[in-house]
């Protein structure tokens, strides 16, 4: 079984329960700034070697770790409004790391890393039962229904930092965990124990041409996300389920904030 952990192992450093929660990485996505352009999706897919098929119009088998959903306010013309919800993996913390997907995985192929707050996925251990997908209300998990195929010479553009996944396993956004590893290794090599905000940024954050995505340590008051998440206009998706996600959204439009969660008919949103 030596080979088995060769690649794709993520996020197990200091993994035991109760160890110091060093970082709590998360995002604040400003929906007032998001233009729905889709650059985050492409940045994510190129960074993480996400494959593509000739026909990707069936969104039910199309792997997009970062997917931009479109919400409408349901009103007729001309009072209609739309808003985009970029949806990476929420890296739910649940209660003490009890993320919806982590506890259900029968083979411990996905794990909540207490050092970073990142939910990992070990592709080489996953045997494709898809229970985690059933557990995730955000549809953030994707199954490799096909063998990945890169046409012509496009294999040349694959990144060695992220191993391409074989058919039959589940994958999802990792908050570009390999970038965290790289930043941490660099910091350690330079004799530092902490990494700075700029050293570790996800590919989508970096690419976003509108600057709508902000990424950082939610626990660190010096990081932008720490302040942004406290805005009265900040909210999270499906917060009421108790998933305790680490991706926050921000919108000044009340209907958008309401669209982020379920409410009873006459219930007031938060």
């Amino acid at each position: 079984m030596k080979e088995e952990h060769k690649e794709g192992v993520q996020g197990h450093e200091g993994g035991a329960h109760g160890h110091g929660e060093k970082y709590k990485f998360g995002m604040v996505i400003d929906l007032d700034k998001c233009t729905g352009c889709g650059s985050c999706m492409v940045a994510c897919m190129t960074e993480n070697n996400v494959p593509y098929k000739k026909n990707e119009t069936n969104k039910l088998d199309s792997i997009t770790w970062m997917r931009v959903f479109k919400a409408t306010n349901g009103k007729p013309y001309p009072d209609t409004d739309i808003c985009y919800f970029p949806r990476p993996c929420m890296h739910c913390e649940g209660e003490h790391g009890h993320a919806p997907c982590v506890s259900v995985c029968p083979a411990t192929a996905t794990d909540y890393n207490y050092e970073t707050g990142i939910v990992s996925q070990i592709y080489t251990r996953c045997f494709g039962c898809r229970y985690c997908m059933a557990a995730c209300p955000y549809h953030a998990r994707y199954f490799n229904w096909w063998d990945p195929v890169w046409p012509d010479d496009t294999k040349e553009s694959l990144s060695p930092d992220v191993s391409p996944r074989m058919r039959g396993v589940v994958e999802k956004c990792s908050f570009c965990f390999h970038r965290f590893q790289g930043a941490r290794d660099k910091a350690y090599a330079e004799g530092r124990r902490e990494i700075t905000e700029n050293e570790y940024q996800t590919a989508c954050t970096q690419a976003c041409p509108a600057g709508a995505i902000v990424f950082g340590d939610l626990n660190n008051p010096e990081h932008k996300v720490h302040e942004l998440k406290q805005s009265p206009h900040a909210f999270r998706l499906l917060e009421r389920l108790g998933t305790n996600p680490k991706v926050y959204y921000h919108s000044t439009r009340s209907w958008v904030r309401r669209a982020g969660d379920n409410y009873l008919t006459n219930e007031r949103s938060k």
Partner: protein
Amino acid sequence: MDSALIPKGLKRCPFPQFALWIGAWSFIMLWAAIAAVIAWAYGLNTTNLNDYFGFGAWITADLAIIALGAGAFFTGFMRYVLGIDEFKNILNYAVIIGFICYSSALAILALDIGQPLRGWFIFWHANVHSMLTEVAFCISCYFTVLAIEYIPIILENRQLDKVPTLHAFSHNLHHIMAVFAATGAFLSFFHQGSLGGVAGVLFGRPFAFRVHASIWPTTFFLFIFSAIACGPCFTILVTRLTEAITRKKLVARNVILKLATVSGWLLVGYLSVKMLDTLYWAAVTLPKMGVNFFDMYPQAPFNLWILIAELGICGAIPAAILITKKTRENEFLLILAAILNCTGICINRYVMTVQALALPVMPFDKFYNYVPNWIEWITSLAPFAFMAILLSLSYRYLPIFPQEKELNP
């Protein structure tokens, strides 16, 4: 031709007729085998499963088959643990049915995973907090128990029984069978329960999520309850079907009726608990998540009718028939009730997996539907063919019905 193998004193159909019968079912098995090979070779893109319906026909079939196969452990439990002696007359058959159900379920599970060659990681890298791990362990262990229970039945074959070692082995196995049966019952309670837990723990899925009693969601107990309520009915159905096909009386009527009564009362019990659970879910669990009860039943096939079908038509009606002496003793109503009962449980297993996933949770997400394709259909239905074949073989070559001689003079 094969008369040497047929139990003494029992009449069986001519071999060519038997061969034709087996051949017909084998054809379906072959078809399913081809489907399985396609799915294994080319991957799960050959099915209609997708990211929104990671669970589909296969899991439904799995859960349903295992619930229906619950007759085995529960009859064993009643015979060996509770000491209800009449059930020895149907226990062999119940065990074989159970064996068939569980082996089919395991085969379908092997199909349903994306990396079948890594299926054993569920044991090697087991996450003990996962309900699915519990399911895997309990099913495998219980399957072993069923195999152990099946061995002495096989060894009773006329020719095998002549071998002294095998005879002795069989005898000794019989001797301590109660221990195995009790262990099997223990395992079964847990895996039926953990199958329920699989759905009930999904706190991201309002449709499936149920309030927890200690570490288990209520579905844990509901699945056990529903399985033992329908398992005996399935045993009755298969027995009656066998009798119809063989045109013989195989099990005494009082045994069947007793089983029906037990099933009926269990169903009553199950339904009352299930109703309470549903009410609590609708009135407390869902509103906490901001979800209206009626949002859970938005459109066909997942509208309120599916709930009415599950709990009313296929729940209350068969329960009423089975617990009432007069209706129970009416052969037509008995069979109808058994069918309804089994259907109700199948619907329950279907909604807890497929409907639970079909309903979008994010308010801006879309509702999609899913229809299994032929590969899923044929492999999900293949257990029936397997059942036909294995039951026929067992019936022909093994003395499985102790009452057969006395009922067919």
